[in-house]
């Protein structure tokens, strides 16, 4: 509701012609505060339209508009009418940069430092260029080398940059109840029930098959794997001559 009122008010402001933009820019240079306000107000529609493009990035729309407006103010303060560009052409970059920085910093549960974000951006760009040139994706080592950081660091950055989702969030898009992620996502130590059943049946089969071994075969298998209940059982598991030699050789070193 509040936003609708805001949009209505912003819509009432007339757009500026090129000549008006230049006049206002000149006045702003001379410190005219009213001209500055008029320039900002006349371009609020542009700020809203850019903010709208970032609505699905996990930030509130009100915040996006605020950040977008801050970018607009920065553009008004830095606009140089002498270069001959339209104000909107110049302002788009400042507004987009402000919104992108906000989205990158606020979306997700973990806030990433700007240096890490810059590395992710560089790595992404390298991947795109590599793929378009060689028609295949680069290896993780190549990406790490291209941005000049160790592979482990790159992996850690990617891991922390991944989008976090609340386990309490509903799986359905309309969040109208239904199952949550916590109900369906397995724990790290959880195993597939099918795999567990397979294991049990294989084990049962092996236990039956073990009974069919001859005593000699079972004895040899036990000796091969050192399967004695008592470690000091030197009757069934004696110290052999070759073992004696090894022990003596080790102790004489």
């Amino acid at each position, binding site marked *: 509701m509040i936003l609708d009122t805001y949009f209505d008010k912003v819509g009432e402001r007339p757009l500026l012609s090129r000549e008006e933009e230049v006049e206002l820019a000149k006045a702003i240079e001379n410190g005219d505060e009213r001209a500055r306000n008029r320039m900002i107000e006349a371009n609020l529609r542009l700020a809203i339209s850019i903010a709208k493009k970032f609505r699905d990035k996990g930030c509130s729309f009100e915040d996006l508009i605020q950040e977008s407006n801050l970018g607009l103010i920065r553009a008004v303060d830095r606009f140089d009418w002498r270069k001959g560009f339209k104000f909107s052409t110049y302002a788009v970059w400042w507004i987009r940069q402000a919104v992108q920085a906000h989205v990158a910093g606020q979306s997700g549960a973990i806030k990433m430092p700007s240096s890490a974000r810059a590395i992710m951006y560089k790595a992404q760009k390298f991947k795109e260029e590599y793929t378009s040139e060689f028609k295949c994706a680069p290896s993780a080592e190549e990406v790490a080398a291209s941005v000049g950081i160790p592979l482990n660091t790159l992996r850690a950055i990617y891991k922390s940059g991944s989008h976090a989702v609340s386990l309490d969030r509903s799986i359905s898009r309309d969040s109208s109840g239904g199952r949550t992620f916590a109900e369906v996502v397995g724990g790290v130590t959880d195993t597939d029930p099918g795999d567990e059943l397979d294991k049990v*049946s*294989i*084990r049962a*089969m*092996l*236990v*039956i*098959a*073990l*009974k*069919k*071994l001859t*005593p*000699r*075969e*079972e*004895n*040899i*298998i*036990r*000796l*091969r*794997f*050192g*399967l*004695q*209940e008592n*470690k000091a059982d030197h009757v069934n*598991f*004696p110290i*052999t*001559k*070759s*073992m004696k030699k090894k022990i003596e050789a080790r102790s004489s070193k």
Partner: protein
Amino acid sequence: MSMPKGFKAENGYATVSERGGYGYREIAEIMSENGFPMKHSAARNYFLQGMRKLASPLVEVYGLSLAEVERIALDPRFQESVADIIDEEGVGI
């Protein structure tokens, strides 16, 4: 023509030294002392024969070809699983 470079098992070999197990020569020595004279190669053959017997029912149940018996019997992962089961179940002797 160069000489064959020998055989390398696909999945390595089962660990026996960490379990306190014996080599085939030592097994042959122990078995010989207990009245079953054999060489190390016979000890290995008995061991693999046992493994084949254990792998056979798996091949039947999973509908695999008989050639798979040999592959499973030689697989160190299978051999170590068998060792774990004997250790836990205490089957036989």
